[in-house]
């Protein structure tokens, strides 16, 4: 690159310190990208080991103690160190300021701080893994976690506790940025839906994460200091823990899925060149999910000796929270109508997301129906359901988003054919892995079983085969993304012909995003508007 070319955020300086002490939201996003990718593959390695062990009914490769630690570490690493930070801290960090016409987040130092907090929390957890891991399940149910488990509960819990602060810092930063940093003319209803999704997610992070922090401290107090809070032998109540845990951890599911929904809204609009259908309904449904999500925690506890009447209320609200999700799916589908649809890689992920999220969402209705939940609670049916949401939904959205914005983040194009192939592999591998688990679950196979009854074997073999295909589908993008950094063609500012402020600046963006504060801000999806005029509302 010649000296005359304007510097971008990647090549503006190249020292290690310029990365580790950077206050640029885009560089912090890259730091997060690297660290969540490492945790994704650590969590994935545990999944591979689990699926390998479950090929046959008896225990073959591992002791039960080891197996229990592996599924626990898989859950903890994937939930707290990959899924929760993935889209907000990587794509949100990179795009949120650009999308609203700002030069950075409101608090760049807090942003950098959040990454360090995340890394410290991660270091605790990795240390716990090295010291033998935890065997409580990612749910840390008491009194097993607080009294009975002999594993590294305290260290891991501290890791999760610390990492929670990084969520809080990110959430705070996003909320303030959206309120105070929008460019002139960027009204609330001109914000891209990804920004709305980030805003809703940030509210959950801010309001929910302190609760899990307190809960973990209480487990710590009981385990290390002997305070009787959850263990009935000390006068505590073990079910209290579940209320506190799910008060955070159910909304945390929405921390994982809402950002993906935001990504999908962007991709669908861009690759059908359509103003997103029902913009305000999609934005409002994100907010509705964020709020209602705090009121459904008891649906994890229908058979925990919770009152039947409480169960009824939680069941009812759980059905309510399904409606905004349905609205989104219908609006995305309607956006395609009379569009100009192209099938580039991000769009394939978006289609995959809609299909898998629809199944994941509808099977959520099975679990909200109390009578069915009694049978399938704590079986593989639940495992299949939440993997359809978290892997089929959240990770498809994350990968779709990475493929969509990779040219913006790096200025490079990845190989189109290979990336389409890998999207197909992910979709097939995913369904082969997780669909049989619905069947195994309804047949009665409990989750977290190291050894299982022989009649479940065929379904488990299918699942394990699927997992190996899925693993390939995840390794391919890692390979061609890295390849593209050196060998990829230059992307140019707008390779997709998409709308939105991020596509109006160079790729990769300059260190301050915009040379001048953007003006004349329009609807983020004004495809066809200049040609045909603003659409009317039909009553």
């Amino acid at each position, binding site marked *: 690159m010649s000296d005359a070319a304007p510097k971008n955020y990647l090549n503006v300086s190249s020292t290690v310190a310029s990365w580790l002490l950077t206050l640029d939201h885009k560089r912090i996003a890259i730091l997060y990208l690297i660290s969540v990718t490492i945790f994704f593959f650590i969590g994935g390695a545990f999944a591979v080991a689990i699926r390998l062990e479950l090929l046959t009914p008896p225990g073959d490769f591992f002791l039960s103690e080891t197996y229990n630690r592996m599924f626990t570490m898989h859950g903890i690493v994937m939930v707290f160190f990959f899924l929760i930070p993935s889209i907000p801290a990587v794509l949100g960090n990179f795009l949120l300021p650009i999308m609203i016409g700002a030069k950075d987040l409101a608090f760049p130092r807090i942003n950098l701080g959040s990454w360090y907090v995340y890394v410290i929390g991660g270091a605790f957890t990795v240390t716990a893994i090295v010291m033998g891991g935890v065997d409580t399940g990612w749910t840390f149910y008491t009194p097993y976690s607080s*009294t009975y*488990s002999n594993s590294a509960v305290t260290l891991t819990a501290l890791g999760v506790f610390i990492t929670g602060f990084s969520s809080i810092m990110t959430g705070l930063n996003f909320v303030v940025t959206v309120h105070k940093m929008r460019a002139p003319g960027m009204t609330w209803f001109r914000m891209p839906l990804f920004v709305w999704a980030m805003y809703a997610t940030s509210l959950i992070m801010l309001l929910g994460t302190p609760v899990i922090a307190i809960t973990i401290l209480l487990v710590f107090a009981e385990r290390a200091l002997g305070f009787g809070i959850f263990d009935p032998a000390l006068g505590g109540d073990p079910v209290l823990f579940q209320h506190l845990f799910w008060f955070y951890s159910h909304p945390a599911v929405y921390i994982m899925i809402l950002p993906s929904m935001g990504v999908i809204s962007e991709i669908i609009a861009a690759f059908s060149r359509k103003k997103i259908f029902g913009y305000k309904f999609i934005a409002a449904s994100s907010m509705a999910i964020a709020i209602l999500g705090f009121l459904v925690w008891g649906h994890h506890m229908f058979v925990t000796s919770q009152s039947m009447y409480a169960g009824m209320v939680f069941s009812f609200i759980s059905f309510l929270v399904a409606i905004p999700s349905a609205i989104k799916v219908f609006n995305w589908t309607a956006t*395609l109508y009379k569009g100009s649809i192209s099938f580039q890689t991000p769009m394939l992920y978006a289609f995959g997301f809609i299909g898998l999220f629809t199944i994941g969402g509808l099977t959520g209705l099975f679990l909200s129906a*109390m009578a069915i939940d009694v049978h399938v609670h704590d079986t593989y049916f639940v495992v299949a359901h939440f993997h359809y949401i978290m892997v089929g939904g959240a990770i498809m959205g994350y990968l779709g988003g990475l493929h969509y914005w990779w040219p913006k983040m790096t200025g490079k194009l990845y190989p189109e054919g290979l990336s389409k192939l890998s999207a197909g592999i992910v979709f097939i591998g995913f369904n082969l892995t997780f669909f049989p688990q619905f069947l195994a679950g309804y047949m009665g196979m409990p989750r977290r079983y190291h050894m299982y009854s022989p009649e479940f074997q065929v379904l488990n073999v299918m699942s394990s085969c699927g997992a190996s295909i899925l693993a390939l589908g995840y390794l391919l993008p890692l390979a061609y993304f890295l390849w593209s950094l050196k060998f990829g063609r230059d992307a140019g500012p707008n390779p997709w012909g998409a709308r939105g402020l991020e596509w109006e600046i160079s790729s990769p963006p300059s260190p301050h995003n915009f040379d001048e504060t953007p003006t004349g801000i329009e609807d983020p999806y004004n495809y066809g508007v200049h040609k045909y005029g603003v659409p009317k509302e039909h009553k």
Partner: protein
Amino acid sequence: MRLPFSPEQASSLAPEVDNLYLYLVALTFFFTSLIFILIVIFSVKYRRRHEDEEPAPNHLSVWLEISWSVIPFIIAMTIFFWGTVLFFKQFSPPANADEIFVVGKQWMWKIQHPEGRREINELHLPVGRAVRLKMTSEDVIHSFYIPAFRAKMDVVPGRYTEQWFLPTKAGRYHLFCAEYCGTNHSRMTGWVTVMEPEDYEKWLENKQASDLPVETSGAQLFKKHRCDTCHTPSPTALGPRLAYGTHVTLADGRKVLADEKFLRESIVLPAAKITAGYSPIMPTYQGQISEEEIMQIIQYIKTMDPNAAETPPSVPAAVIKLGNDTVDSAQTQQPGMDAGPGIVEAASDGTSLSQQ
């Protein structure tokens, strides 16, 4: 109707759960296909034909938005009502259900039939008779799950939980622990054997000499642990009278129902709730009496007559207010005398045990 990939329907409610499941499977299939077909049609019909295509924006239709909010809501409510009504059936045992006692511990199920026969990791039941399991745990949370009955309930230390079912089909069915409980969670499994009633009767008879009926064991334990030293109906007794199902006034003025949970707590953590008028002198029996023994003692206490009055009416030590139609309330009611030790009041509802 029984779908493929579903377990045997061996209880009265299993077919009902499966019907609701079938309804949900049909809905899932319908909506997934609907979305899939629309995406395929739109993708073919509106595929991009040249690079600089820019279609006209769609007009927003508020009616469309409302209809695809309201219709899913109505459908969701049908599932909600169906699921809730059936759930209430699943957790409302018939009054004549036989009681069986279950204790979970890492990593086994200990079961005792009221007639005394005990078993481990096995549960024998007769066809056509409703049974109610009273369950607790010695250590962590477990969950008693019989897929063929579509029945599951957590087994929680420090409290009693219940579930019931009516087996309809003889056979041998899986029993699983469904709540992760530590290292050998996946080995905490067993079998439920449903037998014809006459076979079951024979099976019950074939017991060890030590398998006494539950209340009998309870009565022996009551003596063995010297509970009867203090808990006598005598007005000068050191301990409050034991009256199951009544309301007890505590030293701090609260009133609590003397249910199984309260009795259990009073045995293992006697200082937690002190009955008004008594000193907190009872030692804890935590670690000295097993959960099965506590269940047996409670069953024995339930057989005690709360009005076995050795109490002279003039002594305010055991004022009994009765609201229960099984006993003549006029006899012992003493208006104006309150706050005496051991004030008990008959419970008006017997339902408060389930689902607490």
